[in-house]
């Protein structure tokens, strides 16, 4: 078996990530600022609306909300970028037998870059608010970032191929993430003042919500760190990556015929 990682593949990955990054903000005046404008605009609207209608009092609410939006966007972006990655590279896939896994990984990296730009601003806000930054907590957040990345990588190995065959999946995913946004504790906290006990139970079970709360815990904003649970998440994500890799390598040989 050929080497899975070699210099040429890393360079290819690099070029693809660089190009899609350049392209996204080419010919736009605000350029890279758009990475920030979207989450902060969402943040402002939600903050305003929520403070008018809600009776929940949440400690550090602005940061609670902002971290929720930024990490939910990260999760959502990875899933959509990964899902569309093969379709968007169709013109290359039909002409060159380059390692197709790289199309997926490079697409996900765009999402990771966006997250890191947002993280810088979250740090600035944390510092301005005089919050203590705990290095172990930051390490924990990076670990959670990795879990979300791996989970979506594994998922994309399946969805990227299925989406080439069934284009409906694009709309299904978009709708699912829109609905999931409201079923995830991003602007609210799951408690019995807001939900009946059954609904609260279901929403508490939402793994994205759980991981968002762990991110907040890592920043020292809300809740407690639950490392064993996250190690389990990590293990599941790795398993999904392995299964996805096997499925992808089996199916990708035929992919050129499906376009």
């Amino acid at each position, binding site marked *: 078996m050929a080497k899975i990682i070699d*210099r*040429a593949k890393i*360079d*290819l990955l*690099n*070029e*693809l990530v660089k*190009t899609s990054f*350049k*392209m996204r903000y*080419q*010919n736009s005046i605000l350029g890279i600022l758009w990475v920030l404008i979207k989450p902060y605009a969402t943040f402002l609207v939600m903050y305003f609306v929520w403070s008018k209608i809600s009776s929940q009092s949440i400690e550090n609410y602005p940061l609670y909300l902002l971290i929720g939006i930024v990490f939910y966007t990260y999760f959502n972006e990875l899933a959509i970028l990964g899902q569309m990655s093969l379709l968007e590279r169709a*013109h*290359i*896939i*039909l*002409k*060159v*037998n*380059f390692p197709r896994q790289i199309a997926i990984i490079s697409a996900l990296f765009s999402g990771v870059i966006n997250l890191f730009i947002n993280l810088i601003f979250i740090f600035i806000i944390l510092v301005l608010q005089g919050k203590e930054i705990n290095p172990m907590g930051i390490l924990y957040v990076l670990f959670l970032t990795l879990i979300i990345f791996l989970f979506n990588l594994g998922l994309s190995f399946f969805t990227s191929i299925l989406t080439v*065959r*069934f*284009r*409906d999946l694009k709309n299904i995913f978009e709708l699912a993430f829109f609905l999931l946004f409201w079923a995830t504790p991003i602007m609210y906290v799951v408690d019995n003042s807001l939900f009946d006990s059954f609904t609260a139970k279901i929403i508490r079970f939402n793994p994205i919500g759980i991981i968002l709360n762990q991110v907040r815990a890592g920043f020292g904003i809300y809740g407690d760190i639950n490392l064993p649970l996250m190690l389990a998440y990590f293990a599941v994500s790795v398993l999904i990556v392995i299964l996805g890799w096997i499925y992808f390598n089996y199916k990708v*040989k*035929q992919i*050129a*015929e499906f376009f």
Partner: protein
Amino acid sequence: MNKDNAITIQNVSKTFLLRDDKKETLRSLFSSFFNQGKSRHFKALKNISFEIKKGEFVGVVGKNGSGKSTLLKIIAGIYSPDKGGKVKINGKLVPFLELGVGFNPELSGKENIYLNGTILGMTKKFLDNKLNDIIDFAELREFIDTPVKNYSSGMVVRLAFSIAIQTDADVFLLDEILAVGDLAFQKKSFEVIKRLKQEQKTILFVSHSMQAVRDLCDRAILIDHHELVEDGKPDKVTYIYEQLFQETEGTSKKDVKGKEKKEKKNDNTTEVGAHELSYTIGGEKAEIISYEFIDHTGKSTLKLESNQNFKFKVKVKSNIDTNNQMILGVMIKDDINHQLYGLHSTYNLKPLKTPPVKIGNILEYECEANLPLNPGIYYVSFVISEGLDYPPYYQDLHQLANFEKIDVYYKQVRWGKVFVEPQFTVTKLD
């Protein structure tokens, strides 16, 4: 499997599922679940087997839609063959199925070198070293930091070709890539391909230019109607390929023959003077407007005497401005369509230089030669090409596909087709 083989293809077939209503949405998936039989199978390749040795330069010829590209895509690993088919490649393979894959028009020429180069499997370090070679070969030094969207199509193709040829591989798949760029660039491209050949690289080369296949390849493969029908010497394979076209062009040829006969009826003698032309290929950039044969007595005729000098005059009108050479070619075939000999205005001992021409200029070519043919019926065809100093760097501009019939006579009976004046002597030995 043989270790000397660069490419081994065994029983490769390829079936595509043609869906009249492509299953792109879940709705159509469900509807076709209940309504099967809407899809049809299409065999793009049927049971192809061949082997290519290391260092061989093999031309793949065939009509459009015959399955050539599918075969190349299978060898390149873009499609996988049907069950039972085997493709084995020995060494690193680089497919140039299309030049400039992944080029991004918004990026500069230089950025596209890195993007396209890495897609073709090169490393950044390798490209750093080759950067200047690539820019110089493409002749784009002034424009290398300009976005590719501002390039002319010729510039894009030059850049793409220059990147592709840097690849360090053992097996190359070239699909029609010699047809790119202007004549000067084509000449450079040919030289690169020849260099690859000298370096003992294995090359699989798809082309519609039979001249290029004959000049470059050691072997050729003909694919017709999804099957491999011929594998052998380029001369033989390209000849069979050309015959395929004459079969399919039968109808249009009949028209011409009908026309010819009509003309002959009006003018029943074989003395025809400058002949009007009716059936041709090309003719946009230059036209052969008339031709004429003159026998050794100075009479304009289609009846020529064997082993005598004869002359032909051809008038060509240019519809372009060019400083390149306008090369006249003549081919003489026998009555069963075998090529007997060709003459070329560059075959002169001191090659003929044509003056620069402007739109509307007319060039008159005159050639005097001995007629080395025995009595019989022969057919003559002309082609005018724009080219550099010598073949194969030329493009055919106008070809007369209706071979003129000439009638060769001699005062005595002669055997065979070629006239040789013997110098027999005889000595009595006792």
